[in-house]
């Protein structure tokens, strides 16, 4: 095949992407070395001051980061377990198979913030249906205003929203599995549980890794839901890193400091996701 043509195919996309991204990234790094804020908007040079402040004098950022880790890992584990269960259930013949498949996909097609607005009315402490139904048992959790419960409200909403994506990836994987191992298991008379443990699950391991990583990447951006559901509150109890950077950068206009946080955040994301991917590959593929 001709040598030159390949570049005509590759370059438009590659260069558009690089072209759009390169300046923002360089700019974030440069901005993070400046003291840009609302009183003093400009690219002066203050060295590593922002980073020193971030690493020595800002527990709120690190708290928000650990909170984000907790929220995203918990939601992804829940999504994986539920998504796998659902995919496994509608994989083989079941009544109204296609109806359930479509139904289980629907939440991921809905705009998270818009559904979150609905969830807010749903979990409303005095006028929402959840507490109304729970009042039968005499309990009334403060879904949005209790620091602990609010985290679980965020988790519930995220699980509702994104389990379908996990379900989609895992069902696509299940549908692509070869038939032979299952025939062999059936001939050996394996029980459904043993079949799952020794055949389905190992075959699904590579797909599971892919799906979990993809979901972790997306979950690490949790921000819309939090913004609408609790605005990070009560206090800072549901504030995630993105949301904190958003407040500093685009509410308080401490652009320089926000840039140093976002660059640090990006680096941490890349490192931790790489480590998670390596660990998952080792754990799931070895067994």
């Amino acid at each position: 095949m001709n040598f030159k043509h390949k570049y005509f195919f590759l370059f438009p996309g590659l260069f558009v992407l690089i072209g759009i991204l390169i300046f923002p990234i360089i700019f974030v790094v440069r901005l993070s070395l400046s003291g840009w804020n609302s009183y003093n908007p400009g690219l002066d040079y203050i060295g590593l001051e922002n980073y020193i402040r971030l690493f020595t004098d800002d527990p709120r950022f690190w708290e928000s980061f650990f909170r984000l880790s907790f929220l995203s890992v918990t939601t992804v584990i829940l999504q994986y377990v539920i998504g796998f269960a659902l995919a496994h259930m509608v994989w083989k013949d079941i009544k109204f198979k296609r109806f359930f498949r479509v139904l289980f996909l629907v939440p991921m097609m809905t705009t998270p913030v818009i559904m979150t607005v609905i969830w807010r009315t749903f979990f409303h402490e005095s006028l929402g249906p959840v507490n109304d139904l729970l009042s039968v048992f005499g309990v009334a959790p403060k879904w949005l205003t209790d620091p602990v419960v609010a985290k679980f409200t965020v988790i519930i909403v995220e699980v509702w929203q994104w389990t379908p994506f996990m379900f989609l990836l895992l069902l696509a994987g299940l549908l692509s599995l070869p038939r032979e191992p299952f025939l062999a298991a059936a001939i050996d008379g394996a029980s459904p549980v043993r079949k799952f443990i020794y055949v389905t699950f190992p075959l699904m391991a590579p797909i599971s890794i892919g799906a979990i990583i993809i979901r972790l990447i997306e979950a690490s951006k949790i921000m819309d839901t939090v913004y609408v559901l609790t605005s990070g509150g009560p206090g800072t109890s549901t504030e995630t890193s993105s949301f904190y950077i958003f407040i500093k950068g685009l509410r308080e206009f401490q652009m320089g400091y926000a840039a140093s946080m976002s660059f640090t955040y990006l680096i941490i994301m890349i490192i931790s996701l790489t480590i998670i991917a390596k660990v998952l590959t080792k754990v799931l593929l070895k067994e």
Partner: protein
Amino acid sequence: MNKLYIFLKYFFIVVWTVFVVAPFLWALTTSFKDFQSVNGGVTYIPWVDFEPNLEGWKVLIKSPAKGGVDIIEPYFNSMFVTCTASLISIILGTLSAYALSRYTFKAGFVKNNDITFFFISQRIMPPIVLSIPFFLFLSSINLLDSLTGLIVVYIVLLMPIAVWIMVDFFNKVPREIDETALIDGCNPYQAFLKVVLPNSIPGLIVAGMFCIIFGWIDFFFAFILTFTEVQLLPVKIVALNSSVTPWWSLSASALVSVAPLIIVAFIVERYLSKGNLSGAIK
């Protein structure tokens, strides 16, 4: 044992179905309520618990001057931005994906897989990291609060998805078909347009659906990069969520915004069942 399994299976499916449907049902009933039936305690069943009325829906098509919430313009803005950005991403992404699937690239230690990974890894980028420089950039070239600015940003969000799905899809389209076309005297572009593309329509549809989903549901960039001139649907609806929230029009507008993507769910399911999504994540 087997009966227990089947019972548990259907039990779980029913529970999950209720969970999935609950917010939609709640929104649907709420959209027919008025002030009294929202604020006077929780009500569920129309005609029994409360008297339904169409106020929540009528408000959506009234002009703002008459106290309506004008969601028609944001609706078309959203559609325009989503479709344009998806189209550009699909075209550029498909070309790059074809190159990555058919040719070998080597520049130092960078090989095909690394380039593919570069494309896909752009999803790792947290939106907040990009939003601050984009905010300052777009304001310096006067594209803040404009559709063009948003489309540029959305291309970054969507092209990785297009490349991801299409590389995998082209890998499954046999190479022989392009080789035959080349032997028959097509140049590489003709071979691509006339032979490879027509054989990749399922892949293009799946990639298109995913771009549309992830474009349509984005809120963050629209929220930060637009204010008053241009409004997208999610931003408009969230703005309704003020202190004195009219739950009925909020619910009605939420349902209206969610509706078109239900069709996408049907299309995705169809291609899923046919096995066209199978390899995408391996």
